[in-house]
């Protein structure tokens, strides 16, 4: 029998309305500003189980950060229910706050003027961590992210990437059950991004942390998350695994063949019934890139194998980036 997984996040009919100032004349703006109500989140339902890595995806202003802020108890919802680890986050009870962590890519939790070690000491005291536990954890986490040598450097003297690594360590020093990450790789170089993604995956796997991530970087989501929730205009548009997202919204497949000989005109006309030929940037001689769907993929492969000596063959799904772009267009 399949074991029922424990829900750590349960959101029902969540709504958030903001008051936004309406543009009016200069004097009216100062003395009698007018406001309009904007519905930023329109009745979202979400259930997340322990240990999942879930991405919130959406264009700017879609409502994903607002949803995360409501989950962490930072802003009050206008309507609906939020239960995080069985608690009401808006009460901001210390016992609840001890069980979550928050990283914001463009906001700093560590003090600019202190060294990372001094900042970690503050965190250790805030969470009332035992000296040995905190020291061991700092040592292992800094090793994992390759920043051990930088512990005594003032935060302001660290590079953006090094600072973000320290922020990550600071946010999970207390071993939270859920880690909320809002654009954690924003502005980082490729190598640092990669290291951060590996780190997040490691802590999810080894420590069973539930990861809730928002990012504009599709690679972050592909590398770290198992599930994706697409939000647009305050509504949940999609909620499933990344693999299913690709399958559901794009039945297309890209097939690349490297053949011994060039295709004849007759063969091309037969293939054209099954696929369209795409521009191929490969340097191989007699390399062809075809776009087809799942249904016609097998007949296409059979046709090509029948009369040609195939040197190499690759089947690729449509890149997630294209799927997301299509999804946003559709919504």
């Amino acid at each position, binding site marked *: 029998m399949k074991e029922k997984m424990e829900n750590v996040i349960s959101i029902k009919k969540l709504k958030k309305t903001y008051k936004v100032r309406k543009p009016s004349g200069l004097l009216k703006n100062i003395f009698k500003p007018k406001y309009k109500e904007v519905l930023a989140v329109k009745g979202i339902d979400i259930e997340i189980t322990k240990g999942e890595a879930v991405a919130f995806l959406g264009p700017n202003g879609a409502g994903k950060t607002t949803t995360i802020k409501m989950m962490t108890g*930072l802003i009050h919802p206008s309507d609906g229910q939020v239960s995080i680890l069985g608690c009401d986050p808006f009460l901001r009870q210390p016992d609840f706050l001890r069980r979550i962590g928050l990283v914001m890519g463009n906001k700093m939790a560590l003090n600019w003027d202190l060294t990372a070690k001094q900042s970690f000491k503050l965190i250790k005291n*805030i969470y009332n961590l035992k000296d040995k536990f905190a020291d061991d954890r700092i040592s292992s986490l800094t090793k994992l992210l390759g920043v051990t040598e930088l512990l005594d450097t*003032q935060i302001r003297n660290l590079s953006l990437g090094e600072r973000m690594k320290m922020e990550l360590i600071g946010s999970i020093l207390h071993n939270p059950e859920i880690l909320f990450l809002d654009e954690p790789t924003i502005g980082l170089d490729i190598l640092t991004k990669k290291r951060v993604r590996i780190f997040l995956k490691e802590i999810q796997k080894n420590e069973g942390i539930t990861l809730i991530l928002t990012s504009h970087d599709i690679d972050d989501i592909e590398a770290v998350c198992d599930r994706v929730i697409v939000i647009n205009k305050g509504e949940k548009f999609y909620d499933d695994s990344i693999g299913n997202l690709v399958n559901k919204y794009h039945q297309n497949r890209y097939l690349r063949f490297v053949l011994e000989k060039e295709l004849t005109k007759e063969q091309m006309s037969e293939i054209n019934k099954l696929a369209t030929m795409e521009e191929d940037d490969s340097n191989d001689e007699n390399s062809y890139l075809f776009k087809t769907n799942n249904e016609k993929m097998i007949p296409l492969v059979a046709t090509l194998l029948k009369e040609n000596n195939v040197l190499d063959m690759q089947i690729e799904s449509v890149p997630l980036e294209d799927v997301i772009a299509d999804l946003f267009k559709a919504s």
Partner: protein
Amino acid sequence: MKQSVFNYLKIRLQILGINISNTFNIETAYPAENWANILSTFFYTASYILFLNVIFGNVNSLAGYSYNDMLFFTFVSQLSFYTLFNWSYDNVDALIESIHKGEMDLILTKPLPTLFYIMTRKFSIIRVVRDCVLPLLMIGILIDWSALGLSLISILIGIIIFVCGQWIMHVFQFLLALPAFWQGQSQALLRLSYILTNPNLPLQGLTKFWRIILTTVLPICIVVSGSVSVMIGRSNPKTMVLWALCLALFLTYVRMIAWKKALRAYNSASS
């Protein structure tokens, strides 16, 4: 589970200790800044003493205050300014900055008594000593203490009024910072409090109307004028101390309610 008084105090003392230690680390990270501050307070105090000398070179008393009384008034006023600036203004200013830049998000998600943490974040012992000692020494040396007629009781009551007055001024600054929760910024209002919270106005020099206004509706004259006038025997100590205590208690309640409302209105800066 209800928190015991012991735990309540323990957590706050721990936070205070950490914040003092952190502020110490920050301030010692930039040693040149300390020397610049010492010079600045020295020149300000010296010019103010010169100003008093010029005034009292032409008149014997001002609102019933002699040169010596006025030096004592300046002594308390400077003490009040530097302590208030260090424990309240800096922290209220940092609160606005945190809201404005959205860093408040990362404070509100920590298991802390938030208001206590925020209001002690920049509690600098070094700065109090650095900024206070030199001007107070300069003024203190010039005062003829025996001529002031201070008694132990008047000093004690004066200290109670001074402490209540500091708290009243703090709540005043704090309330002026809270609009930041609604509109994201409140620096201009806080700057207004900087001007208003340390008026060098002896109560006896004010008309009855202004005396009432500046000790009730806008109680900015309690901390210095109130405590000094009681210490040197110019005001009724019982009335003043009772009024200061009532006002401090009432404003503590207002502060608590306002903080809860502000937290509820917090929208968090966009990321």
